[in-house]
């Protein structure tokens, strides 16, 4: 297969990925809305205890039910796994087609971020059984892939010489990984804020309804924190490795390029969130809002900075 065929295959696999994710998203939504009742308590416990060490208990197996009912959860997870594999194949074929790391332009970068977000989701799914996040993360991934394909699509080709460095494998990969993690944390934080308002209004969760499948505010908060605590050091490393690269490429390790400014802003606000989370009077709602501000800065760094300001990171 020559590079044109591979590029073509990559584009076709992209379509497969998006379709699989959309169906998975609908299945997650169906699972949240009227899925089989599982032992929800066990799910919640796992979020609480399983973190940090090996899982201490498996979710209780669902009681045997009539076979004709659709198991939305299993369907959703299977589709997600298939979609993830197709997504991986999109990146691999694209990389082979262009003989470089497949994150050299905005299309490839956003595709990779969506992949990182799905990977982060699969990790929390396996580790903390956080299936309730599925509908939201797949939605984010579908939106990201949609934007990438509709507005940012770029045909396979070489990158500008400035990007020809092994640092692209390190710096950009770290940025992508952290962004993926922050996306999952952002989804959990939004759910936290909604749930918190609901709890404050003393709404009662209908048994088997949507909210009975979403963990308590405490667990959502904790999940968001855990994922952020993974993303934050990776983001820090991404910034530092970017600085090392900049020192080789631009002659200065820090020059307040708009992308650098916004990475810094994102970093500072996430740092504020982590500190607020451990401070009496700030934890909870205020900390969650800080986390969302940080996520907004992260998104702005991706879209706003590249399309509104001109700087040295303008590779689009």
């Amino acid at each position, binding site marked *: 297969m020559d590079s044109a065929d591979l590029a073509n295959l990559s584009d076709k696999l992209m379509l497969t990925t998006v379709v699989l994710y959309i169906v998975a998203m609908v299945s997650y939504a169906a699972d949240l809305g009227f899925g089989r009742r599982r032992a929800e308590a066990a799910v919640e416990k796992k979020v609480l205890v399983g973190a940090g060490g090996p899982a201490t208990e498996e979710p209780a197996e669902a009681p045997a039910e009539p076979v004709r009912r659709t198991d939305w959860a299993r369907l959703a997870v299977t589709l997600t796994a298939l979609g993830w594999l197709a997504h991986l194949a999109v990146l691999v074929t694209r990389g082979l087609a262009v003989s470089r790391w497949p994150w050299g332009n905005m299309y490839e970068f956003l595709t990779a971020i969506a992949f990182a977000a799905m990977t982060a989701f699969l990790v929390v799914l396996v580790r903390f059984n956080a299936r309730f996040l599925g509908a939201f993360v797949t939605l984010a991934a579908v939106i990201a892939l949609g934007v990438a394909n509709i507005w940012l699509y770029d045909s396979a080709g070489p990158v500008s010489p400035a990007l020809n460095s092994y640092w692209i494998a390190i710096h950009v990969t770290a940025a992508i990984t952290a962004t993926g993690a922050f996306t999952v944390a952002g989804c959990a934080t939004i759910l936290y804020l909604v749930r918190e308002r609901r709890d404050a209004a003393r709404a009662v969760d209908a048994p088997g309804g949507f909210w009975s499948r979403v963990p308590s505010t405490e667990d959502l908060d904790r999940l968001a924190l855990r994922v952020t605590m993974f993303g934050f*050091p990776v983001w820090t490393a991404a910034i530092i490795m970017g600085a090392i690269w900049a020192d080789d490429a631009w*002659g200065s*390790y820090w020059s307040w390029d708009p992308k650098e400014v916004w990475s810094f802003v994102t970093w*500072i606000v996430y*740092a504020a969130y982590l500190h607020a989370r*451990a401070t*009496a009077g700030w934890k909870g709602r205020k900390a969650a809002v800080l986390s969302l501000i940080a996520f907004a800065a992260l998104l702005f760094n991706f879209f706003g900075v590249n399309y509104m300001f001109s700087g040295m990171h303008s590779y689009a």
Partner: protein
Amino acid sequence: MTDTETEAGLERPAARRAADEPPRPRGIGPLGWLRWAWRQLTTMRTALILLFLVALGAVPGSALPQRPQAPERVTKYLDDHHTLGPLFDRLSLFDVFSAPWFAAIYILLFVSLAGCVVPRAVHHYKGMRARPPAAPRNLARLPQTATYTTDESPEDVLTKARAVLRGRRFRTDTGGAAVAAEKGYLGETGNLVFHLALLGLLFALGVGNLFGYKGNILLTEGKTFANGLNNYDQFSPGRRFDTSELAPFSLTLDDFRAKYELKGDKRGQATDFTGRLRYRTSPSAPEKPYDLKLNHPLKVGGAKVYLLGHGYSPVFTVRDAKGQVAFQDSVPFLPLEPRNLTSEGVIKVPDAQPEQLAFYAILWPTAMASSDQKQIVSGFPAPLRPVITITAFKGDLGLDSGTPQSVYKLEGLGKTLNPIKGGVKLLEPGESFKLPDGAGTVTFDGLKEWTTLSVNRDPGRLPALIAAILAVAGLVASFTVRRRRVWVRASAGDDGRTVVEVGGLTLGNPTPEFDAVVTALRGEPEPAETQTKE
């Protein structure tokens, strides 16, 4: 806030936690006010507000053009915005990161950080050397507990407990009928290292700004640059910079090569730039070759040399009315558009007799007709079919007036310098143009390329790198290592057997390590009856 509610690595000492609203001072004198202000500054709330202000303050630095990066865009902004511009300028919004108010925020933040971290470091150092805290009276109230009975004597149980815990690298201490053990200091150490490394990073940035220098040069193929203040086109030294820091190196650009994508819809996109250099670290040192590329700066004499941009320098020979060679050199042209490098430049010939000559020229590296067939455009950035259009002027260049002139612009057009009638001509390499009225001839000899090089020296570079690595390492340690305490108490029971109580307290979430400790203590394969409280 109790320990169990805190996440790993995010714990604060009492000073940061409690001082949410310290009592306002009343009649306590200036010293009291100072102490009050200090306590306010070092609270977490102040730190959070300062963090947020730093983030907020950085935003205009990305939205508005900044002087250190793009002075020409600042000038343009000031020209376009007559009311807002000067106001923004007075607020230092065109140089946010050197602005006094921005410095005030981050200095306050770092003072607040130091005020918190330094006492914590002392506290932590003492804690690491002190004996592990003695066992609480009621071990059953701890988050992790286990109780069992055994036939071993209490002394044997405690001896074994010490051995087991030491084997797991706990620090242990025996007091009364209990063993106290503690480990996981790396978490707090990492946290402190992270914060102190940030202070170090700020320091390194300052050192670089004070003692370093940065300069740009434009070098055409065949020319040599010697590192000296006068040879830079642009030079910005740090405040404490000393010319003796300019290492006496020199470099010659032999050849510059750009590679471009030749086909497909990315045709014309650059794929590689290489500048072939020869350099000497000092005038007497041997000459060494170097291929300068993007991402591969040349390190020489404590400085680094970077490839920045490139363009064309057409070579011209100008003969004056008397037939004398009045000018023969390459002239750097500046690109008018980045895609296909249509470039413009001027040739000044002050030595032409009887009148000085000047030329304005446009270069198309790959000349072709535009789609409407009406004008010439460049169709490719490489010089596949270079064509120059040249416009001749004669008169006075104004070079003797004493005011410095740009080498890229003609001064006094239409006043002292007038176009020669019929003095416009298209030239290909090797072609000559005989100026009307016998004013002279100009020959387009060929095309060379130039490259812009950035030379800088930043003594803060290495310290900054070390601080950054320490920061990440500290962060990871503080997020992954948790302080753990275990107490084992053994006492004689009513039935003559020994009752062993084990209690565990982990900062953050309980770890499975406690269960492993209990299992090892019992020396039995069956699981201990441990309890973890939520």
